[in-house]
C-alpha cells in the first residue's frame, strides 16, 4: 500500500506522543472513535491563562493514517486560540497528508478530536459547553 511521505514521517516519528493527567489544570481531553471501528484517538490540549493552546499530546490506536492525522493536529493546534483550533477542517488535514479517499475518515476523526478536547476544556472551565461533546464516559 502506498502511503504518502508525510504519513510515513508522522508514523515513524510521531510528534507529541503522551498524556497529561486528566485533572491537570488547563487540560482538555478529547477521546473519539471506538476500538470496534479500528480507531481511537485521544487528543489533549494544555491551554494557558491567555487562552492560547500551549501544548498538545496524543495517543492513537488505529491505522497509519489515523496516527499521522492526530500527530499532525497536535502540531497545528499549538499556538492557536481555541476558536482558531476549532476552525481546522478535516479537508486541510487530508490534503496536508495526501490521504486517499478510503482514509478520509481518519482526518474527520482528528477534527472531531480537536472539537472534543476544546469542549472538555471549556466545560471544565465552566465556559459555554457545546452539546456535541464526544468523550468516553
Amino acid at each position, binding site marked *: 500500500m502506498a502511503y504518502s511521505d508525510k504519513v510515513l514521517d508522522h*508514523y515513524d516519528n*510521531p510528534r507529541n506522543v503522551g498524556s497529561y493527567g486528566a485533572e491537570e489544570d488547563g487540560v482538555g481531553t478529547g477521546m473519539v*472513535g471506538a476500538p470496534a471501528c*479500528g*480507531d481511537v484517538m485521544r487528543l489533549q490540549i494544555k491551554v494557558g491563562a491567555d487562552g492560547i493552546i500551549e501544548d498538545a499530546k496524543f495517543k492513537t*490506536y488505529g*491505522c497509519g493514517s489515523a496516527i499521522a492525522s492526530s500527530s499532525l493536529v497536535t502540531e497545528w493546534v499549538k499556538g492557536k486560540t481555541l476558536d482558531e483550533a476549532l476552525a481546522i477542517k478535516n479537508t486541510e488535514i487530508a490534503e496536508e497528508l495526501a490521504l486517499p479517499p478510503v482514509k478520509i475518515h481518519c482526518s474527520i*476523526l482528528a477534527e472531531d478530536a480537536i472539537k472534543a478536547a476544546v469542549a472538555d476544556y471549556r466545560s471544565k472551565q465552566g465556559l459555554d459547553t457545546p452539546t456535541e461533546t464526544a468523550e*468516553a464516559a
Partner: protein
Amino acid sequence: MNRPIYLDYAATTPVDPRVVSKMLPWLFDNFGNPASRSHAYGWAAEEVVELAREQVAALVGADPREIVWTSGATESNNLAIKGTMQFHGGRGKHVVTVRTEHKSVLDTVRELERSGCEVTLLDVKENGLLDIDAFRDALRPDTVLASVMFVNNETGVIQDIGALGAICRDKGVLFHVDAAQASGKVAFDLDSLPVDLMSLSAHKTYGPKGIGALYVCRKPRVRIDAIIHGGGHERGMRSGTLPTHQIVGMGEAYWLARENMGAENERIRMLRDRLLDGLMSLDQVFVNGDMERRVPHNLNLSFNFVEGESLLMGMKDIAVSSGSACTSASLEPSYVLRAMGRSDELAHSSIRFSIGRFTTAQEIDAVIASVSSAVRKLRELSPLWDMHSAGIDLSTVQWASH
C-alpha cells in the same frame, strides 16, 4: 533494502524451481494442443497432461479419471456448486455451507440465491470448527449440496471432513470440499474419504497460478452440469484448450508435495512453534483458531490494543496479511474472525503469518524481533494500552461512535 521476509504462503507460494524447469519445455519446444489428435505435437502434449493428471490424483488418493482441470480453486468452487445445483435442481433447491468459507464459495451461493436457491450459512464454534450436530441438523430432505472447506485460509483450522462427509452420504446429500489450503499440508485419501467434489489449487502448493482441478467422484458417480461450454474438453465438464505447461507444473508440484509432505510439515511445525514462543512473550497476544486441529503452516495472532494495518506498516520488512480491512470503506474486520465470535477489536488486531517450504529459522527470528518492536512501539502510542495498563476494563467504556 532486501526484499521483505515472505510469511504469506497462504496467499500464494513461489513456484518451486524444480516445477519451473519441468514447465519450460512445454512453452516453446513442445507447444502442441493436447486436443490435437492428428499429429505428434498434440500426442506429446496429451501424454504429459495425462501424466500430470496421475500425479495430482496420487496426492489426493483419487483415480486420474476423477480429475478435471480448471483455472484454479475459484473456478472449481463455481463449477462444483453451480454445476451441482443446475444438474440436480429437480431434487431440491437447498444448499448448506459455512460463514467462514472463502468468498468464491460465499459469493457463488449468494448468486444461486438470486436464481431461487435457498442457502443455509452455518456458524462455527469459537475455535473455528463446525459443530457436527448443527451440521447434521441443517441438512433437510430438499438439501442437494453441502460445501465445507477442508482448511481455512485465514486460521488454518482443519474441519472434520470424514465425519461431515459420512453424514452427507447417510442423508443423500452431495458433499463438496474446497481443499485449496489443504493439498500438500493434510494427508488424506479420497478413496476412503466420503467426498463427492473437491476443489484443488496449484499455486498454494508451489505450482503456478492459473491452474487448478476439480475432483469429481466416480464411485458413487457424481454428475454436474458444465458452466463453461465450447468443445467438450474434460469429458464435457470444462471446455477450453488445456494449458499444457500449467498442467505439467501442477502435476510436478503435487508430486513433490506427495514426496515431501511428512518431513516438510514437521520442519514447518518447528518453525511455527518457534514463532509462537517468540511472540507469546509479548503480553495480550491471542491465537485465533484451534491450535490442535490446524495446519502447522498457519499462525493467526491478535495483538490486543494494536491495530493490524498500523502493525503491518511497522514491519515493512515482513510480508504478511492482516485481518483488519481498514482500507475498505466499510471498515469491516475479517468476517472469518467475526464468525468465530472474536470481538471487532481483536479482529482488527490480527495478523496471519503463514510459513512455507522456503522459510528459514533465521527468518523466523528476524520476524520475532521486528514484530515485537513494532507492537511495543504501537502500544506506547495506544490509548487503549494505556487504559488497559491502568486497569480499566475497555468493555465497560462507552465509546463515541463515528
